């Protein structure tokens, strides 16, 4: 009887969810009141490769705080009303996405930082402006649609676009996971490396990165003398790899792993007497990392798609981000910065759409941006090409030197190194450099 009563009570309350709430909302403006604009985000607790996704919420909150201090947007405060956890599962991701739209009734969804963005189809179908960390094919479309764009690129056709115009990843909505990666090859060439090695986990995202790295090495003439693509996250013994690196006189190591796994290899190599090897990692650019390991990281390079925080001349966006993080007592990280960039893009979209903004008009506004830089933090992003393959491949690089990150390979005041993309250049001899201080921005983003 008790269970029956519980079920009846539960169903009756749930059933009354159809009763509308009090808030007066215009068409296309859920989550907008006279005083607030509500957004909500979702993340996985931790990525399978140990990346702290939840940091993204810090970045969004920090950006909103800076805007709200100046009066918000059109007199309305920006509010992150929900930080949902999808527990790392696709069905959890879908439920969380639906909860944000149907229960929390948010205007936009940000940040989305998850292993598996299964909810992307739903959010796209509801035309909800969505922002997050682009590491899943869902930002582009279904796996079939994403593969179609990749296949088109492989066939030399660069005009195929992703069919989800309401989804905005912090580095674009399309990433070609199987295309040759430029960054590892570029660093190897700059360091004069002759014999490279590659390490990845068997996990599929790591394996996709490996495919791109391998293709890049091949395209740009780096001799890949050793690979281990059968490592298990956290669990594998690397003695054999260390021995092989020594035996094959490897002088450059690229990894598609978490920083910890890569560091384990480098330490093993040092302990076995291997020296003078350059390590390149796509993950690990954190204050806490350099602080903890100091000179043990000498010889390490990190690559990422934004202005390094150690640049002598920081753009306004980076300064504001670092200041906000310092005020909150939070160490900067790629994930929190991604959240900040998401929030910046959203606010820029609101401002461009005008006072009577709707979800559709904000999406259209962002899709009209031809050079969005988040106030100088990023290489210009062109959203007007319909979420397709980008025409430039840009990255900034830092080297760990005696406990500090030192920007490399750029020019003074121009730390970002770029190459044309789609199609890619035959060599990496002729990059161009993006000026941080004169990087074009589409609009001012502070205040209303």
């Amino acid at each position: 009887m008790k269970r029956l009563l519980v079920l009846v009570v539960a169903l009756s309350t749930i059933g009354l969810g159809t009763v509308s709430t009090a808030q007066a909302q215009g068409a296309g403006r859920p989550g907008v009141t006279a005083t607030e604009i509500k957004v909500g985000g979702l993340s996985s607790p931790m990525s399978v490769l140990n990346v702290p996704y939840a940091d993204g919420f810090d970045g969004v909150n920090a950006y909103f705080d800076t805007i709200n201090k100046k009066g918000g947007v059109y007199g309305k405060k920006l509010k992150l009303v929900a930080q949902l956890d999808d527990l790392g599962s696709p069905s959890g991701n879908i439920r969380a996405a639906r909860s944000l739209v149907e229960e929390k009734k948010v205007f936009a969804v940000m940040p989305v930082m998850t292993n598996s963005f299964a909810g992307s189809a739903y959010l796209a179908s509801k035309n909800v402006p969505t922002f997050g960390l682009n590491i899943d094919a869902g930002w582009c479309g279904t796996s079939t649609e994403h593969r179609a764009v990749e296949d088109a690129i492989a066939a030399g056709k660069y005009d195929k676009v992703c069919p989800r115009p309401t989804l905005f990843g912090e580095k674009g909505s399309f990433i070609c996971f199987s295309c040759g990666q430029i960054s590892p090859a570029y660093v190897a060439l700059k360091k004069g490396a002759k014999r490279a090695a590659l390490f990845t986990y068997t996990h599929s995202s790591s394996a996709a990165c490996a495919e791109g790295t391998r293709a890049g090495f091949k395209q740009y003439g780096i001799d890949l003398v050793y690979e281990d693509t059968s490592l298990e996250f956290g669990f594998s013994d690397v003695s054999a790899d260390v021995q092989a690196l020594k035996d094959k006189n490897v002088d450059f190591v690229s990894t598609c792993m978490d920083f910890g796994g890569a560091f384990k290899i480098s330490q093993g190599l040092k302990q076995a007497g291997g020296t003078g090897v350059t390590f390149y990692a796509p993950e690990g650019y954190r204050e806490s990392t350099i602080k903890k390991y100091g000179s043990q990281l000498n010889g390490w390079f990190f690559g990422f798609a934004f202005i390094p925080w150690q640049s002598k001349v920081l753009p306004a966006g980076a300064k504001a981000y670092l200041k906000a993080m310092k005020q909150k007592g939070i160490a900067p990280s790629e994930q929190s910065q991604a959240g900040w960039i998401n929030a910046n893009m959203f606010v820029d979209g609101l401002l461009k759409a005008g006072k009577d903004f709707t979800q559709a008009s904000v999406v259209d506004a962002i899709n009209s941006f031809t050079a969005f830089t988040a106030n100088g933090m990023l290489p210009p992003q062109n959203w007007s090409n319909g979420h397709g393959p980008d025409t430039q491949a840009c990255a900034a690089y830092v080297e760990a030197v005696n406990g500090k990150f030192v920007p490399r390979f750029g020019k003074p005041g121009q730390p970002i190194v770029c190459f044309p993309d789609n199609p890619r250049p035959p060599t990496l001899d002729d990059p161009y450099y993006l000026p941080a201080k004169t990087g074009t921005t589409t609009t001012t983003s502070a205040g209303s």
Partner: protein
Amino acid sequence: MNQFISWLIEGAPVGCIYALVAVGLVLTYKTSGVFNLAFSAQAFASGAVFYETVINSHWPLWLGFVFAVLIFSPLLGLLLDRALFRYMRTAPWQVKLVTALGLLLALPEIVKLFFGAQPAEAPPSIAPLIGIDKFKVFDVGGYFISADRLTTVVFTVVAVILLGLMFRFTSIGLQMRAVVESPRMVELAGVDADRVSMTSWILSSTLAGLAGVLLAPLYFILDGNTYTLLIIAAIAAAAVGRFVSIPFTLLGGLLLGVGERALPDIVGTTGSFAQDVRPSFPFIVLFALLVFWPKLREQRVVSDPLSGVDPPPPAMAHEYKDANLQRMSKIAFPIFIAGFVLVMMTIVSPLWVTRLTDAFALAVVFLSITIFTGLGGQISLAQASFAAFGGFAMANAAEQFNVPALLALVIGAIVAAIVGALFVLFIDGLPALIGRFILRRPVVRLAGLYLSLATLAFAFMAEKVIFRREAISQGEYGIAVSRPDFAQGDRMWFLVVFIAFALVAFLVIFIRKGTIGQYLAALRGSENAAASIGINATSLRIILFSLSAGIAGLGGALIGMAQGRVEPVATYPALFGVVWVVLVVTLGSRTVDGAVNAAIGFVVFQWLFEALGLPPAIAIIGFGFGAITYARHPEGIVEFQTRKSILATARQRTLKKRAEELVRVEKLPTTYRPVWQVVAPVLAGPALYLLYVLVRSPIQGRWVAIHTVTLLVFLVPSLLFALVWMFATSHRLHQAGGVARDWIYLFAGGVVGALVGALFYNQGWVPRAELLHCVLAGIPAGVASVAFFLLPVQINRIADNRGWLSSPISWREGRAPFGFLLFGAFLFFRTSVTDASSSTGSFINHGFPPSGWPVFVLVAIFVITWVQWVAGVQGASNELAIGGEGFESPDESVSNIDEESSASIPAQIDSGGV
């Protein structure tokens, strides 16, 4: 030769780690019969404590080591033994396994709650403890071994030697070995088996602690998932020692470590084969040993010769229903189902339709566990893998071969069923062939704990080898799938899933009641006896595995279709198979009810905790510790509660008949009061308020805001009535011989409640409230908290004084309402620590839904629980009044239910007792 030496030197440290963990496993298995799969979780806890003390709290290294390994770890082992495993020494293997699995899930989440979820990098090295610089590298004949690795070897060898000596040459070691044989016989010989078991748990936990601090610097990272996988390797090492021999277990660990080191040189480091074999090497070894080494499964099963005196399990709950109740159920149940479907198809919000649809899809998978465990008596930890087979088969059929969606679901089920059949043919057939043609003798079938371990190994192998293949999963992002065209909407999709669930549920019931169910029951009892009456165990096992796998496959296909895509790993993680088994077994593996409750609980609890702003890990901790109830209630919580409810209803009906007899002879005591007369006023207030909200909200087009005055107008009369009733009942019981000076306890409860209310106010945990409000709320809460336990205790005492063999109520009845009060207080506390945007804070600040529903549902369940307690106490009090000597209340025997009570009017009524 050089290469072999390098394998040995470089593989030995890791092998020692495996050996250390494996030895701990063998130790507890040898001495307490528990295969402690949570050993790795204990190691993780110890590693986390070590990290926290040395790195974050800057303790000296030696102090952190002593605390983590020699204080914290043994205490943890002592706690586990005293609180849990000592009650399970003679319990069946299923109970021990499920409890260990529950700990395997819960312990890492508890650690993360305390120390944070993010894995910790660069754990401290303990090499300096033995005077070695942690950065030093030793050159051993041209081969390098780091300080951490050398330290690991040294500590492991010393630990194992000491253990071996202890077993061989000390009396405690001998006693430990004897306890394994038969705890009861050992006790008959005058040895305190309890103490011996406790000692072994302390020892093994210390080993776990040592393993935890040694492993961390070798892995470079302290992460719960890594330690979870470690246990599989340890089991493989322990299997080499046949789970009994410590020296061979050590050898097994070393062989495993050396083998792992040798693998890259043998199979390479790239290519499919390397990517298959290297990550899954420990699982392959374990699976191969379990399947192909008959001697392993033929070792004398650890069983107590006196265990046969244990009583048989209770009958199914529905068998306790009398004819009336069965008739009512047959009418009410279809009406309830029809009403449920109607409500889901019309008024329930689309998102909740989706959530409950996901739950019913999961329930289909859970019904596979009902078949395998509830009927078959075995435990399979690979149900997530069978679900994955079904999901990928469905997805490939639909997307690659354009099979219609519904047919694709069926294909998914069939393919999974075939895989299940092949699996059992493999694990039974191949060893049978080995026995017949090589060993020339029959081979014991893989069953019990070993079968469970084999399924666990299979699950991880499938995840790392099979589902990663491009041909099956089509790459990293999986396969996009679509629902049937007519079921694109949430409600129609719910109907599809619900119909599928209903069909499977009927199938399960049909099987349970039919011939196959009877055969399976016979097989569970004794395979030899079953064979003697013509039951073919081989074909029955094939049917069992196929059915179970097929049903899991159907569920997996439904889950995949609901998500719109089927991905490797993310959709069906192997570890989910463990979570699912723990859930279903805890709630009830013998009934459809148990599976449904488990599925709905799995989905709803995650939503509830998140909606309340609590970490979702709390749900996993709850599920894990819920498994511990399996020891007391092997039939499952749902079955237990159902049976209890039916028996209580029958008891009250008997009592009512007695009361009617007494009324006829004008001898009904004034202290007797029909339960409804007490429950109605208590329930009236909350029920009327709910009605007010439900009626007014649609009228005004929005949810009614919570106004304190309105709330009090409805609730205060019921609260006052309840308080008066508590005092009056307590006083009456006291006069009948209950607890002396009862009013002092109740008064003290009120005072403490008032003080707690004041504390809450001071801390700001009750927004927008005054001090007086908090104190006034605290007083009845405090009084009730005491009364929840005091009244049943009083009834117990009176029953004892009268010489009754059993009391009509137990103090345990007070735990549920008291627990809810505590949880409510905790939620108020959370309003101060959670962001204002979270649901808990929102409810308090902004009132009703959408954010307030979770708390609203909790309050509703609390009210129901509280009312049930009131009914229980009043009923027990009535039984004291008119029950007594000669009163035959229904007991656990099913045959008593329909008998009329034939007792004469007891003497106590004449003397004016309670």
